[in-house]
């Protein structure tokens, strides 16, 4: 998700351009009709070229899991006909897309980087213009993943069974922390740092109780994406295959 930018003193809205670049959505802003890459969060053509949008973290998860964690949540409504279509649904609208493990994107691009299967879901993280992909298959085994990807101590949290993940720099006051899973119940993760046993919120990066109470970890920007798409945007990406 992005903060909608102010252009010429007014906050603009985005529309769907109908164009694809690297098999990914291209948006346009209604103020200047510049083109913006949804994955990069920056303008790639038109008057706003080079401008980058501020990211707001969002999670890909299931309605049931999200509702359990946020009972006060609102949910986007659907028109009656579409609500009925979805009520009857079994697969996703891309079910034939998933059937071919090698065709990436609407145009069936081949996987550009064989390090991982093109249709594998990864959590792609970005820090200081460097990129790393963490397969969700790895996060399924390690819901709390400590890594030094991108040359920095990073921790990735991901509740089992969800394509939801959040990443943080695991450093507080220059001290590197290692995190471990205390408890995993459905969609709830309780995590703590090994050094002090303080418990932390995986969703906000804030220390809830213990020596670091009130402190927060710095978030690392990330998104849930297919490897084949991520690799098109970031050919030099690291791939994280194990944690510490």
């Amino acid at each position, binding site marked *: *998700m*992005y*903060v*909608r930018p102010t252009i010429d003193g007014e*906050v603009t*809205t*985005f*529309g*769907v*351009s*109908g*164009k*694809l*670049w*690297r098999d990914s*959505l*291209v*948006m*346009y802003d209604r103020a200047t*009709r*510049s*083109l913006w890459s*949804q994955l990069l969060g920056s303008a*790639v*053509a*038109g008057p706003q070229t080079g401008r980058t*949008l501020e990211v*707001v*973290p*969002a*999670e*890909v*998860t*299931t*309605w*049931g899991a*999200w*509702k359990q964690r*946020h*009972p*006060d*949540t*609102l*949910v*986007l*409504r*659907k028109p009656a006909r*579409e*609500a009925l279509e*979805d*009520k009857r*649904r079994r697969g*996703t*609208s*891309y079910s034939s897309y998933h059937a071919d493990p090698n065709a990436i994107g*609407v*145009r069936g691009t081949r996987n550009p980087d064989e390090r991982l299967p093109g249709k594998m879901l990864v959590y792609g993280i970005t820090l200081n213009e460097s990129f790393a992909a963490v397969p969700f298959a790895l996060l399924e085994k390690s819901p709390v993943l400590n890594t030094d990807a991108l040359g920095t101590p990073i921790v990735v949290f991901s509740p089992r069974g969800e*394509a*939801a993940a959040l990443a943080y720099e695991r450093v507080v006051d220059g001290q590197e922390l290692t995190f471990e899973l205390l408890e995993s119940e459905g969609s709830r993760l309780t995590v703590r740092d090994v050094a002090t046993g303080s418990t932390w919120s995986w969703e906000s990066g804030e220390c809830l109780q213990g020596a670091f109470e009130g402190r927060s970890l710095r978030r690392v920007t990330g998104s849930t994406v297919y490897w084949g798409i991520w690799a*098109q945007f970031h050919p030099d990406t690291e791939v994280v295959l194990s944690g510490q």
Partner: protein
Amino acid sequence: MTSKTAPILMFLLGIAAVAHAAGTNLPEIEQIEGDPVVTLLPPDGIPAIDRPKFAAASKAKFMHRNEPVLGVVHNGVAKAYSIWHLDRHEIVNDDFGPDPLAVTW
């Protein structure tokens, strides 16, 4: 031309100029950083949602338990957007209190 038709003509030319500007195409760029830009549909061929409406969780019988959603908490407000529904619209222009956000999929 009489003194009455001149202003009318100016007015019509003005309307035509504004209409042309409003209907201006998007940048017709063919490649960016060596990778092609492919045009599949006209602008807004997939309509973004500009005035999203929301239901409370307790009034959301239209949602499956296993339905994939994009969830976000911002300014103390939690919202979920069905990914099945985002497939239809790709973009939701939304507001979280004073903050204008774009949910993109």
